[in-house]
């Protein structure tokens, strides 16, 4: 087990190196000049050049790369070209809204989606099954921002139940946080619920056809016990997998949702940084999200052993 973890962590290194090189090259080949953003409309070419030099953007690519990697190895991500703030500080300021919303979304989605999928599989080919399937296909088919606007229109503008936008930290009062977080979470959860419910259903359908389910029934065990005690745990591995890979989807949704609901999170930070060519921020964020993705999937892989004792690393 420990050996496996070490091997997996070592395997992360080439992945992260490729990500780092890839992102670095991608950005430096992109047309766009942070100096132009900083200097504004009236800058002359000479002024731009001076700013570029002072930002280190005139150095040859490999020098810039070595500088950046040197910083990385020291655990730093550099300083934003535009706002002159350390990238770690910028991310630190803005990670929590995203993190809290993402975690709440995942919890919410799992709580909603898994029972949905289980019941759909159990009542295979009945209206319940069709309703769940219809929802999950629908969830995939509507752009996340449309869902967001729909929720705002209904719950904030028509019914006036919830604030339109914004974010409050849980420390400002949990109710306040919840009131502002619930719509973004629901919006994000739609696609996630669709995904997980679908996978749960498929996985459960497969498991329900297994011999040991027949055995359990032959023991006279109740259907609820059959479903949740026997079947669900066996069906868990693909569900966990989809939760992990769905994380990438979540990031995509977060970017959009944050801008619909005006949440000061890292999703917007990244998009703004891309549009402003704020290289250190983009590199930092992509490295961070990639690392997180790898880490989450590692954790999920390890969690398989919990669900399935046959899996030993």
């Amino acid at each position, binding site marked *: 087990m420990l050996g496996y973890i070490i091997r997996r962590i070592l395997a992360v290194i080439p992945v992260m190196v490729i990500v780092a090189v890839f992102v670095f090259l991608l950005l430096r080949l992109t047309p766009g000049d942070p100096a132009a953003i900083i200097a504004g409309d*009236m800058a002359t070419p000479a002024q731009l050049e001076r700013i570029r030099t002072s930002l280190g953007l005139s150095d040859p690519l490999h020098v810039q790369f070595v500088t950046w990697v040197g910083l990385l190895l020291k655990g730093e991500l550099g300083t934003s070209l535009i706002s002159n703030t350390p990238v770690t500080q910028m991310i630190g300021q803005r990670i929590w809204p995203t993190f809290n919303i993402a975690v709440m979304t995942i919890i919410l989605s799992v709580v909603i989606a898994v029972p949905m999928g289980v019941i759909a599989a159990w009542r295979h080919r009945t209206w319940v099954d069709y309703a769940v399937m219809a929802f999950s296909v629908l969830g995939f088919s509507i752009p996340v921002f449309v869902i967001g606007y729909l929720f705002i229109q209904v719950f904030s503008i028509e019914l006036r139940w919830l604030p339109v936008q914004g974010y409050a930290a849980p420390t400002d009062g949990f109710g306040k946080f919840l009131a502002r977080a619930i719509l973004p979470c629901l919006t994000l959860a739609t696609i996630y619920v669709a995904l997980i419910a679908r996978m749960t259903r498929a996985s459960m359908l497969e498991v329900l056809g297994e011999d040991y389910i027949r055995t359990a029934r032959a023991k006279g065990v109740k259907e609820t016990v059959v479903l949740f005690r026997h079947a669900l745990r066996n069906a868990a591995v693909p569900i966990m997998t989809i939760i992990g890979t769905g994380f990438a989807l979540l990031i995509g949704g977060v970017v959009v949702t944050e801008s619909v609901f005006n949440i000061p999170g890292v999703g917007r930070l990244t998009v703004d940084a891309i549009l402003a060519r704020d290289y250190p921020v983009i590199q930092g964020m992509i490295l961070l999200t990639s690392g997180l993705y790898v880490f989450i999937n590692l954790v999920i892989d390890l969690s398989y052993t919990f669900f399935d004792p046959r899996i030993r690393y």
Partner: protein
Amino acid sequence: MLRIQERLHHFKGHARGATLGLLASAALISGAGFATSAMAEGKTITAVMHSGLRVLDPIITTAHITRNHGYMIYDVLVAVDENFAPQPQMADWTVSDDNLVYTFTLRDGLKFHDGAPVTAADAVASLQRWSKKDSGGQLIADVTESLEAKDDKTIVWTLKAPFPALLDTVGKQSAVPPFIMPERVASGSADEAITDYTGSGPFVFVQDEYQPGVSVTYKKFADYVPREGASSWMAGGKNVMVDTVKWVTMPDAQTAINAIMSGEIDYIEQVQIDLLPILAASEDVTVETRDDLGYQTIGRMNFKHPPFDNVKIRQAAQMALSQEDVLGTLIGNPDYYKVCGAIFGCGTPLGDESGSDTLTSGGDVEGAKKLLQEAGYDNTPIVLMQPTDVVSLTAQPVVAAQALRNAGFNVDMQAMDWQTLVTRRASQATPSEGGWNIFFTNWMVPEINSPLISPMLNGRGDNAWFGWPQDDTIEALRAEFIAADTPEKQKEVAVKIQQHTLESVLYVPLGQYTSPQARSNKLTNMIPSPVPVFWNIEKAD
């Protein structure tokens, strides 16, 4: 002491967040400690500004949001009032009879946010740094004999030749006003952004709550001594009546409107005009124009490459364009735009509309076609750059492209984000190799209301603004303007410049528009100003 406590709080929040971060539920309750940090005490104005504040050095950039930030935390020596007249702000002045020596005297009670008094040495360092960056400042620097602090309160500026517009330039409110910073800050390089944000203005920048691009918080500076007298534009007494001002960014116009209607925010600097009908329904919100001058939207062609190196083709293009179409599409509501052929803007002292008939009367497509034919246009494609991510610039390229096509131009409209555009417009390569032929942008009228400051009127070829016209006539006219010492003479030269500009199409003025603001009715006593300032404003409970 307070700052230390804040830092401790900040640090604890951070550490706690980091350790508990993995435990989702724990993080939900405690981890997010400093995302919004301590609640502001007392009266707070929450304002949505036109863009996010990212650059904090108001000298290094001309971005409006950074200038607005500058007016919050810094003060200026001289400021213009609503009559475009320079008025004393931090300093009074005297001018020698030969107009060569300007002596500024700082008023009493001026203090930086760290408690140190403002001295003449601070002002001199700030003016010197400014004059390296600002185009007007550079013109003055060209004729400066010396600029020095005579004592703690007195600054003496000696010129080699008279510069009649010196006070106007030092007192201008836009495109880099000379904000006064402590000497230790201002003595740094003019090309490197400052990192110490100590000013002497009416508000203090709260660094711990600053989130680049998202929100910035200002606290009232308790030790600020306002000037006597009522405030007028940038001039007069800056009396702060609230405790905290918070600027937040909302990427989505709709969201901001919903937020002000539900009372979550107090102020929107620029409301998209199409959305005004939504606000009309609210009794708690007032929509008004704070700055009647507003903006001028313009098109600029590239003089270096065909076909716009040919003046006839430039004229043909100008002839094809109609201000009404551009403004109608961009703004829609005629209450908020004005067809205006004056390159210095309508409603300004120098404004004059000579030579702009086709622009203001709906364009002359037939005339343009004819002219184009005469000029021998060979169907060279015109690379027209269209930014996709700036709302106030999306309509002009699309409308112009259509108009130019109607006139017989072969238009290659290339969509790109604003960043790519500002990078690409700096490229002097041919359009097919990453250069360009025409792009559009907007100016605040005070930024272009004089030949001294309007960047498009620079005719110095490669040293000119993007487009790089080599135009000796305009340079001669500008020299003539600088030398003009009465308003009448200045106006006379300005008309000549207007005519020449439209004739050789240095740029195409596409009309003027204002941008309405929305405020909660709780906010009162807001003074009119082209810069959204937060002094004088009172907030009801």
